[in-house]
């Protein structure tokens, strides 16, 4: 797997230098980017490994590989670009691709590199993850040698089952300096068992009547109780909680820690898929159509490019959505179509004419790519105009026929649907509530129900996996068909019971 260099692939090296020139010209800001030339089988292998040359041994990578190779064999799809979030940034080119394809891929990759380097959600990413992944692989293999392949593999399956139970804000919270929890004033009053300071002793009985003191005592007791409660607040980083509180063997803790670390590493990519692909598509289009394309290559380019941004009727194509949104932002900020005046203007003719010639489009785009993630991106820039122009709709299943039909073209409904799909990467909000549920050391989780039930079969099995780690009964509070329920696994049986508390949990 030789990296592209003047010695190994002079044509491609020259191409890369050219594209790099355009990248600099357009002020994209990337880590050093290294392209590797590989054949299709290698491409499937690396893609199966999530872009890394090495991962810990596990069948899930074999499954991904199987799917990719079959897709290629049966002509379903073809991987064009593969690039990872590291410094230096590694990307892969398919050996045998035409030069116009390589140009497109390179331009697209540089777009991604700029995004990885500059978007805030990647700020705490481990850019040396190539070493990280290799290290994880070594550790897992070592455990497999000692504990047996089946035992470790089964345990990894259990960890995978829980790998979406992390807190997206965790990396940012860790970075903030810890504030002291107690408040100085509070200290003084609680010390004196709830007495409010009074200057004169003879006023004491008025200022601190017995009922008041009793009240304060009760309050203090409750707070002390709360501080003892584990976790003191509902905890979203369930994996961390388990690592800290579950009776794990040292190899189990090591493996769980690895899975958690990798989950956090990939999280920003899941949070910014639309923006990232849109950004890269915007730049490969810009570079290709205004700088890099030869006339003879236009048709081939158009063929490939249109495939990438094709929109199926039931598919949200992040490439297409992202690039159109960025183009819309560029256009609007060039023409001054933003701000209070714009928002309040509801005269169609005036809106159509509106053009203040501000030329702020490019700058705004760069700002957006730095600050937003998919949810805030859609929330802010998916406008009614955009929705209408791009012919978006919501679809739903017709209960009677089983067909999927267009349900609405109403802007608010479309936006709402899109946001709910993107929020939390489409995952339910799950928290740890209590590590000493029923005072029996049972674990209590809760699902913050926002209108959609959990998949029950999976939830039951996932609960079993939690029990495997907690080693004592585990429960989860949720809503099923509008009824508050508790699902509990005690180590041998699953039970679902009515649980009014489930409706009262505030998260």
């Amino acid at each position, binding site marked *: 797997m030789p990296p592209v260099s003047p010695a190994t692939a002079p044509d491609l090296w020259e191409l890369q230098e050219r594209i790099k020139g355009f990248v600099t010209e357009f002020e994209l800001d990337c880590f050093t980017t290294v392209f590797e030339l590989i054949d299709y089988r290698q491409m499937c292998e690396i893609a199966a490994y999530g872009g890394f040359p090495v991962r810990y041994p596990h069948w899930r990578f074999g499954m991904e590989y199987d799917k990719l190779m079959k897709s290629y064999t049966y002509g379903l799809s073809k991987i064009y670009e593969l690039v990872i979030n590291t410094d230096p940034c590694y990307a892969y080119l398919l050996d045998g691709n035409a030069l116009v394809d390589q140009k497109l891929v390179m331009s697209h990759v540089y777009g991604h590199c700029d995004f990885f380097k500059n978007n805030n959600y990647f700020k705490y990413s481990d850019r040396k993850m190539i070493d990280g992944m290799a290290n994880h692989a070594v550790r897992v293999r070592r455990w497999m040698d000692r504990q047996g392949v089946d035992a470790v593999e089964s345990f990894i399956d259990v960890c995978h089952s829980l790998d979406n139970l992390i807190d997206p804000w965790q990396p940012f919270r860790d970075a903030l300096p810890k504030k002291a929890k107690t408040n100085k004033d509070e200290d003084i009053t609680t010390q004196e068992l709830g007495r409010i300071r009074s200057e004169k002793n003879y006023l004491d009985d008025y200022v601190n009547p017995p009922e008041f003191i009793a009240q304060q005592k009760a309050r203090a007791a409750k707070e002390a109780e709360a501080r003892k409660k584990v976790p003191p607040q509902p905890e979203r980083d369930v994996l961390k909680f388990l690592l800290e509180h579950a009776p794990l063997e040292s190899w189990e803790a090591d493996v769980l820690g690895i899975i958690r670390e990798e989950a956090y590493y990939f999280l920003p990519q899941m949070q910014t898929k639309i923006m990232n692909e849109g950004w890269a598509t915007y730049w490969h289009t810009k570079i290709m159509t205004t700088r890099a394309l030869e006339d003879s290559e236009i048709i081939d380019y158009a063929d490939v490019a249109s495939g990438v941004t094709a929109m199926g009727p039931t598919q949200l194509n992040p490439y297409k959505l992202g690039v159109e949104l960025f183009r819309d932002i560029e256009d609007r900020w060039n023409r001054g179509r933003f701000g209070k005046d714009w928002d309040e203007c509801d005269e169609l003719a005036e809106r159509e004419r509106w053009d203040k010639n501000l030329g702020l489009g490019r700058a705004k785009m760069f700002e957006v790519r730095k600050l937003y993630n998919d949810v805030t991106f859609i929330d802010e820039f998916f406008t009614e105009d955009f929705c209408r122009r791009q012919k978006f709709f919501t679809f739903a299943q017709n209960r009677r026929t089983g067909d999927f039909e267009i349900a609405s073209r109403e802007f608010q409904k479309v936006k709402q649907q899109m946001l709910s799909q993107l929020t939390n990467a489409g995952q339910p909000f799950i928290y740890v509530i209590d590590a000493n549920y029923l005072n029996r050391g049972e674990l209590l989780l809760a699902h913050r129900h926002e209108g*959609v039930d959990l998949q029950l079969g999976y939830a039951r099995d996932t609960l079993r996996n939690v029990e495997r780690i907690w080693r004592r009964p585990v429960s989860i509070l949720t809503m099923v068909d509008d009824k508050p329920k508790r699902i509990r696994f005690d180590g041998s049986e699953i039970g679902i019971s009515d649980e009014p508390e489930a409706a009262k949990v505030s998260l």
Partner: protein
Amino acid sequence: MISRIDKDHRRFREIVRGRIRENLRKYVSRGDMITRKGKDSVSIPMPQIDIPRFVFGDNQEGGVGQGEGEVGDSVGGEPQEGDGSGKAGEGEGDKSVEVEVTLDELAEILGEELGLPRIEPRGEENVETVRDKITGLRSTGPESLRSFKATFKNALKRQIASGTYDPGNPIIVPVREDRRYRSWSQIPRPESNAVIIYMMDVSGSMGDEQKEIVRVESFWIDTWLRSQYQGIESRYIIHDATARLVEREVFFKTRESGGTMISSAYRLAAELIENEYDASNWNIYAFHFSDGDNWSVDDTAACIKLLRETLVPVVNQFGYGQVESPYGSGQFIKDLRAAFGDEEKLVTSEVKAKDDIMDSIKDFLKGGR
């Protein structure tokens, strides 16, 4: 060259086949069996193992799409997460996909997948006749093969492109470069053809599942052999204690019951070949499927005699596939193997479950006969 992922890949396939990690069986969606769909195409599901997670249930809300249409119009298909034709970094896929391919493509893929060698038609005495057939156009050739239509068409195109064509005065003058000539290619037509004789034990011990295995396996053998020969005939024999020639549909649907005398089938097959398929002109293939529970040792001896004297000498290949049934003793395959250990033309294979079908086909066809 073994690559790192091969190990993971192999482990995945073993799990899908249920050979290891039994506890994951219930999460496997769609085995990797290929099923026929429509006249010329098949659908190939891709297996997935879906680890359980806390996820949302019914996708009652549907999704968002783009395009033309009124409220109430159908959008067709299942809602999917699209990711264009490329990925950046980790991607999540969780639907099992079906894809349609034509039978020809399938045969090719099967051949590649199983590493099947192309079949060499037997016998040097087979004469190939060669036909010349007009198949297209060339830009050079003898004047006797001029194609006036094509020539003038070209000239017209050229004149329009260069602007010298006047619709009011439509005169076309072909130039040297416009001239087109009919061209031909040689189509070989082998005299020899192929016939496959399928024999199946339909005694009481062959259940529906066993018949299903036979059906799938013969479909594959059929598909592959069809792609290797111009014309192919299939003949079907079913037997319990007696044998008879039947049509394809009957072959797969019959439920007889009774004892099993395999020799009846072999005898009938031998007769069929003698009456209708001259071995010097035909490439003959015979496949017999049974659960291996023959009536008696004497009958087995008769089978072996029939094979040795009348069947094996005239066939390209004789394949015996033994399916597993709760009632069969499975003795027949052992007897065959004992008698014909070195005989290249006779191949035996055990097909215990659907997952073994592919391996069994490979066993049968890897000889390239």
